[in-house]
Each structure stands twice: as C-alpha cells, then as structure tokens.
C-alpha cells in the first residue's frame, strides 16, 4: 500500500498528528495506561494497614469514628485484608500477595498512596480520571497527549485503546477528543475477535484499491485548491491516508508470529486462565505499539467477573482474586520485557483505577466505593522506582499526608512527556482550556 501522502509532507502541511516539539526535554516518549476499572481496593493491594486486622469485625463507627456516606450505605464491620502483605525488593515496598508477579518489580514501582477523586460513582469518576472533569464530552488524557505531541508513527493513530472486553462506565466518551480536533480521539482495537472493523481491504486486488484511491486523491486535491478551508480538508485527506496505511500497519502490529516462545510465556499467553491470556495479548500488543511510536496506549480489563470489573461490592476474595489473576502476570511480563529491551526508561506505565474501596465491609464480604484515599502506581519514564509517596490514615481510609488530586497526576504525566500542563491549552468557549483546569501540581519528589 504505497503511502500517497508521505509523512514529511504531512508534517509540512501542518497535519494534526505530525510530531510536535515538547515544551521541555521529555523523560518519556509514550504512556501505557493500565486502567483498572471498577476500583481496586488499596488496603488489599498497595496500602498496608495492620490496624485493620487488629480491629477486624468491630463496628467501624466506633473503631474508625465518623464515616463518610458510602454509595450503598450498607456498612458492615471493619474488614481486614484477606491477603497477606510483605515487603519486596531492595526498596522494601509493601505489596500484598494479591499481586505476586508485580511484587517482583517492586523496585520499579512508584506507588502514590494518597490519590483522591472528587466523585464516588463510576461514570463521573471515570471521566474525571480520564479528562480531569467529571462530565461527559471533555478531551481524554490520551487525546491531550496526541494533541500536544503528535504521533511518532505515520501509520497508526496517536491514541489507541486496546479493549480487553470491558467498555468502561461512561462509554467511549472516556476516550473522546472533546473539543480537540477529532483525529486525537482514541481509536479502539479489540484484543479478542475482529481487532478493527473494516481494516481488511475489500477489493479483490491491492491495485484496484490504489486506483480508486488515486482518483479520490485527485478529486480531493482539486477541491482543496478551489476551497479556502484548507485546514479542514487537509486533515480529512490525512485521515483518509492514515486509514489506508492502517490496512497494512494494523495486521503487522497484530502479527505475533515473530515473538519468541519465551516472550509469550513471560506475558502469560499460555496461561490456563482465559482472561490472563487476553490481558497478556493486550500487554504484548502494547509493547509493540510503544516500539512503533504510538504516544498513548490505554488497556481496558478483560470480562473477568461479568460487568463487575474490580467493583467488589460483595465477594471481595473472588472478585479481586480473579481480576488479579488476569492482570498480574501480564503486567509483570510487560515491565520485564520493556526493561529488557531498554524501553522502560522512556515509557511511562500508569496503573490506576477511578477511586479506591472502603476499609470496612459493605455487607459481610464486599467493600464500597472510597474516593477519599487510594493507591495508583507509575513506573519507568522518569519516575523513581521502589518508592511510595503520600499516606492515608491508619485505616487506609483517607489521604492525610501529601494528599493528591487527579489534576496532580495529570500534570505529572504531562510533565514527564515534556509538556507543561499550564501551557498545553486549546481555545474553546472563549477560554484557553487545560486538562488540569486551574489546578494541578507536578509531583516533584517522585521524579527520577
């Protein structure tokens, strides 16, 4: 499939996806966002709170004190973690045995234990995590990154969402371009089944499609010369040409036949659990996209527990156990593989859900939503490994030391990419809009 519009020409013509200079020297070239939808419990994973075991089974209103309203208001007893915590690596980072594989990479992880959200409900919180606003229709982080930096690959979109089976609460608007130009919107690729609709050429021969495309190109160029609306038409032409090139680039990306058995096993492609295999494929494809210069890759989780995601309102052990089984080995494999190939130093891996869970039970064996304090982690691309930043209270309930907002996380991710969150703006509705609105502080102590 000959590229009719070369990348050099695309750059010269002001194509929206052409690479752009950053505001400052970047520490990371790409972001891999491992979206843990449904909300992982911090007190069962990365935030060790021995006090929960001591007060297990007690009335949390007596043990902890006054509680904030929860979504279901079905408050049970203080609930210790069913998983054991241990210190890992040279850093001695506390990680529970929910994640035995990830724990081996403790020295690469920078755990932010004091993250907060403004929303206690999935849809708004998903929008907030993705776009810095709890409302539908704002540009997603990946769209901002694509807008700010352009793409390093002429044949693939700048923001790709690898779908493991779950479309998050709030739907495709989580990956939207909002008021930014539409070519920054996340392009969805399915890890299972048909990866991308209509990516297989429908003509009986490549030359037949080429001939048609040359006519389309001629007609478009003629209209462009007659029209004053060059920017819009150029973008449309570039989009069409990108789609044409994707017919080759996507099958090449998805062809894992060149990956060694050792690599496949490292990710868990041969795992007995179906959902581990799905997420393994996602993680391996994510690495292949980073190698190809895709700026922002987001992974959604497989359909482990129906539509429940990590949302363990009941049956915590099975829900979190199964979800962890799906993602743990693939993520550990991804970190190991990125590191071995020298890619981790300029790839920022972000592991985050939309909020956390309560340290007391919902009913007898679940945990309710908790936006007051939870853990996310970063690895690679300019962050210090083997450290924890911020603290929740003794119960793992609310962030109390170095409390963080989503805007701080966003500002930090942009900073690592060489983008100043105060200067990355887009004029809309009479304002220079920002991902971080009027907030956001770069979390400087975690920078390597």
């Amino acid at each position, binding site marked *: 499939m000959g590229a009719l519009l070369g990348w050099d020409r695309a750059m010269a013509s002001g194509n929206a996806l052409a690479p752009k200079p950053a505001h400052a020297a970047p520490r990371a070239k790409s972001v891999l966002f491992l979206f843990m939808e449904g909300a992982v419990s911090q007190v069962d994973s990365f935030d060790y709170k021995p006090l929960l075991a001591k007060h297990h089974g007690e009335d949390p209103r007596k043990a902890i004190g006054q509680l904030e309203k929860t979504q279901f208001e079905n408050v049970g007893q203080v609930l210790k973690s069913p998983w054991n915590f241990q210190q890992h690596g040279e850093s001695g980072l506390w990680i529970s045995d929910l994640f035995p594989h990830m724990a081996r990479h403790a020295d690469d992880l920078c755990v932010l234990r004091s993250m907060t959200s403004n929303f206690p409900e999935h849809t708004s919180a998903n929008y907030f995590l993705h776009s810095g606003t709890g409302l539908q229709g704002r540009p997603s982080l990946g769209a901002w990154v694509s807008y700010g930096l352009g793409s390093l690959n002429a044949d693939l979109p700048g923001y790709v969402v690898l779908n493991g089976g779950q479309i998050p609460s709030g739907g495709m608007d989580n990956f939207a371009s909002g008021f930014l130009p539409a070519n920054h919107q996340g392009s969805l690729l399915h890890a299972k089944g048909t990866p991308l609709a209509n990516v297989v050429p429908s003509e009986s021969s490549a030359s037949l499609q080429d001939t048609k495309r040359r006519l389309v190109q001629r007609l478009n160029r*003629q209209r462009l010369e007659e029209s004053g609306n060059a920017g819009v038409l150029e973008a449309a032409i570039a989009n069409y040409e990108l789609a044409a090139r994707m017919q080759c680039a996507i099958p090449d990306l998805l062809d894992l036949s060149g990956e060694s058995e050792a690599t496949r096993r490292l990710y868990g492609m041969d795992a007995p659990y179906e959902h581990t295999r799905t997420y393994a494929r996602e993680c391996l494809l994510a690495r292949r996209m980073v190698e190809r210069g895709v700026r922002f890759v987001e992974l959604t989780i497989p359909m482990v527990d129906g539509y429940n995601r990590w949302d363990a309102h009941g049956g915590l052990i099975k829900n979190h156990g199964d979800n962890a089984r799906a993602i743990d080995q693939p993520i550990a494999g991804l970190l190991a593989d990125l590191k071995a190939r020298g890619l981790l130093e300029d790839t920022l891996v972000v592991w985050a859900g939309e909020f956390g869970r309560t340290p007391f039970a919902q009913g007898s064996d679940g945990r309710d939503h908790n936006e007051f304090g939870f853990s996310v982690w970063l690895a690679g691309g300019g962050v210090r490994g083997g450290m924890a930043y911020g603290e929740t209270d003794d119960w793992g309930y609310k962030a109390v030391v170095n409390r963080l907002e989503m805007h701080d996380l966003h500002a930090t991710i942009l900073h690592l990419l060489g983008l100043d969150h105060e200067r990355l703006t887009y004029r809309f509705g009479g304002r220079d809009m920002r991902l971080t609105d009027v907030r956001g502080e770069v979390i400087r102590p975690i920078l390597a």
Partner: protein
Amino acid sequence: MGRRNVTNVPGQALALMNDPLFHQQARVWVDRMLAERPVADAPARIAWLFESGYGRLPSPSEVSACVETLAELEALRGAGTDPAAVWADLGHALLNANEFLYLM
C-alpha cells in the same frame, strides 16, 4: 462561539473504504444511473453521478480524471467484466471523496 472540527477518525474512513454497505450502495447508485442513462457516453454518465452525488456538475478536469480512472479500472478487472462493476468502482471512489463527506 462554536468551532466546527473535523469529525473524522480512521475508523470512519475504513468503513467507507471497506465496509460492504458502501460497495453495495455504490452499486445501487450506478445501477440507477445506468437505467436512467442507458445509451449516454462516459462524460454524461459521470455528470449524472456528480449531480446526484454532489449536487453540481463536474469540471472538465474532474471528468477527465474519472474517464482515465474508468479505463484503468477496466484494464485491472480484465476483458469481459460487467461494465456495471467498473462503474460501481468509480461510484465507490466518489463516495470516498471529501466532497461527499464534508459541508464545504
């Protein structure tokens, strides 16, 4: 003040290129043209397609671009090809051009 952005992504372009629906509709479109212009020459048929698809007549250079493409498509498809299939190829290309997709 609202600013209207390009609302296209590669998925849309791929649908226009490869989805069977657009091949099918191109065929329906040119079948209508062939029924209404059974004995017309190629430029007159191209004019019909532009008028019904874009709401205007083609410029001379557009006509010659289409005539040249028809010849290429005919050669690629080989002798004995149903002429309607060649016209459907041309129609499919016209559905993929910016003018069909955008308000100018």
